[in-house]
């Protein structure tokens, strides 16, 4: 795929994943909880387009990145309806279905996605499991997705304009895709730590922020993970979730396991 072809693909409304994925040898691991990792996710030409768009957004629209995530030392920019360019792949139905299938979950078609930037010296986060509720407006239609924020529905609280129905879901799969980072070396920090327990301080495994790689896992009461402080370099990533029906999550995990936003 040439750079021109990659740009053309990025402007399409459908995403030929068979052409865009580079490495189809993703690795599932069981410890400390079930997750998948992959390197060289996209073909180099398409990855270069993703990185270019991320860097452009950071440079030209710094106001889109907000530091408002409690206990998480990063600035985030939410992907909204109509997301254009190559980053649109992460809010496509094709990507949603791929993520759900790899994790083995029945997802609703609802997606929340953000770009995250940790400046150098970012503090480590606490282990958390991402088993949070998420509110969406509208009803999913086959072949489409609904992005968080549609129709003015608050993702975290479900607050919505009068006359707009809001629908409650639970995060089903977390995806962290690492991009636009300096070359990473052991000791740089900035990994995603995977933990056995909520109160653990030492991760059992770490996933380094190597460009064009990803971490993916089903959100369960036990999917404890957290940002490992980055000592010397920024850490950039795209973070997204697909969701599952609220009642299904409650039936499986119990309502008390769903972690309320604080």
């Amino acid at each position, binding site marked *: 795929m040439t750079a021109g072809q990659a740009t053309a693909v990025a402007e399409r409304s459908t995403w030929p994943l068979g052409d865009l994925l580079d490495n189809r040898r993703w*690795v599932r*691991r069981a410890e400390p909880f079930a997750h998948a990792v992959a390197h060289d996710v996209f073909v180099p030409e398409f990855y270069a387009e993703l990185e270019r768009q991320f860097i452009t957004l950071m440079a030209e629209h710094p106001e889109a990145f907000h530091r408002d995530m409690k206990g998480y030392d990063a600035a985030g920019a939410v992907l909204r309806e109509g997301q254009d360019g190559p980053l649109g792949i992460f809010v496509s139905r094709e990507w949603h279905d791929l993520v759900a299938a*790899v994790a083995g979950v029945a997802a609703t078609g609802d997606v929340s996605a953000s770009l995250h930037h940790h400046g150098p010296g970012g503090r480590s986060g606490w282990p958390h499991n991402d088993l949070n509720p998420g509110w969406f407006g509208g009803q999913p239609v086959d072949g489409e997705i609904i992005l968080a924020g549609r129709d003015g529905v608050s993702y975290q609280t479900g607050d919505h304009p009068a006359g707009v129905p809001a629908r409650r879901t639970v995060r089903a799969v977390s995806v962290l895709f690492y991009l636009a980072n300096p070359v990473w070396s052991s000791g740089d920090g900035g990994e995603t730590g995977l933990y056995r327990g909520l109160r653990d301080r030492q991760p059992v495994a770490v996933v380094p922020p190597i460009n064009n790689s990803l971490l993916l896992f089903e959100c369960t009461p036990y999917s404890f993970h957290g940002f490992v402080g980055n000592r010397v370099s920024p850490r950039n990533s795209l973070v997204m979730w697909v969701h599952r029906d609220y009642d299904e999550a409650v039936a499986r995990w119990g309502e008390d396991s769903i972690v309320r936003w604080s």
Partner: protein
Amino acid sequence: MSAGAEESVGRSGPSSDRRVCLLTGAGGELGTALCQGYADRYQIVAVYRRRAPQVVSQNESVVDPLDPAASRPENAHPVYTICADLEQPGQIERVVELTLARYGAIDLLVNAAAHSVWSPVIDGGELLASLPRQFSVNVGVPLALATEVARRFWLPRDRDNRASNRNVVNVSSVAAARVFPGRGQSVYAASKAALTQLSKHLASEFAAFGVRVNVLAPNSFPSVVSADDVAAGVVALDDDPRATGRVLTVDALAEAG
């Protein structure tokens, strides 16, 4: 999301005609090379202390993101990983017990776990302080593990051992017999020399019940020789039914028996 690769497990363990290899130091360069290169030839029990080998195992499998349900040939021969600190009481017994419970036999024992501290002799107390652990990991653990396998499985099986070509490969070093000036390898080299000599004694004693014992002496890997070449040396010693009490050197310049 199921993570581990699958292999049929019957009442008496996974059915296979592959030989059973108990491997220590599986998270290192050599361990990973053995697991990646020879899992189709051996049923490997891969023992690691801190870092699990990143290979297909009961905890790791390969998936095609565009067809997650499809079977993949890479998942056909998972290694069986065990996290254990073999210096701790009871851990050697546990590893041998788990291996025999799962596979019912041990055909090849590869002692590849090592601990090395390189420092000049006259340079503070670090080197002296490291001596007990270097000898414990590099000499004591291989001896204790070989002894436990012999006690639990090999001793009463003289005929089977010979028929199955059972053997031990202890991974020593060229440093056991050579001095590399300026590298601070004194204690490490002494521990490897002890392992080499110990192996020759084990070869003599284990001959009574038909188990061969050999030494692999590689140069530094992967800097001087490749981990794949060292792994091939392990397999060469396993393959040679007459080799016992032998030191096989794997070096960039020459290989000599």
